[in-house]
């Protein structure tokens, strides 16, 4: 399992290629990549985070995913700082023997990263800068996991 919190861009292709490379016991790799949208003419996004807590929170979420599903490996990369529309903000990759575990774990990771990892997005656009508000839907997305699996 690997968690990386960084300002620098990452090479999605290289990360996916290297992920679970050489493992012959795993039949499925699922990846998700989050990109900056140019909503309302936004020209940039700035992401603030809580160094120290961020890494701990993501590791705890990944540990929980590994406890719930049979996973061969997990990778989470999340960027902070300033990025332009179209740039990748973050990625998760999950590897498992079978795809059901890999898909479910990737969705779980995304739902929890949205509202339980200490990142805050600010959009910069023609009307100035504004903090992105959390959505009620992000919180309710966690409820589907509360019954256990």
């Amino acid at each position: 399992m690997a968690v990386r919190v960084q300002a620098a861009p990452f090479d999605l292709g290289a990360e996916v290629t290297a992920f679970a490379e050489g493992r012959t016991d795993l039949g499925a790799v699922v990846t998700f990549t989050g990109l900056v949208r140019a909503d309302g003419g936004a020209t940039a996004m700035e992401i603030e985070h809580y160094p120290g807590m961020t890494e701990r929170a993501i590791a705890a979420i990944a540990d929980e995913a590994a406890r719930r599903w049979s996973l061969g490996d997990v990778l989470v990369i999340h960027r902070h700082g300033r990025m332009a529309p179209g740039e990748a903000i973050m990625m998760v990759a999950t590897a498992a023997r079978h795809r059901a575990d890999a898909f479910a774990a990737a969705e779980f990771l995304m739902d929890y990263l949205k509202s339980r990892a200490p990142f805050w997005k600010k959009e910069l656009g023609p009307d100035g800068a504004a903090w992105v508000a959390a959505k009620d839907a992000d919180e309710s997305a966690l409820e589907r996991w509360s019954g256990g699996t």
Partner: protein
Amino acid sequence: MSLDVLYFAWVRERIGLPKERVETGADTVSGLVDELVAREERYAAAFADRSALRVAVDQELADFDAPLTGVREVAFFPPMTGG
């Protein structure tokens, strides 16, 4: 007792600093907030609606009624928007 208090996102902007060392006699996070609010208007503005804020105690999410005994670091921030 003294501890580090951290602020993020618009809480940081409203208070005007990212981190400070605070001397407190409070037993809980709520008590600490009461002390901060009594200091200056910018704290009162930042903490006006506590339901809009989240708190972490020693880098773990916590509630406002969490005790401060032995705590080194308390952070205040709006709901997180990662992913």
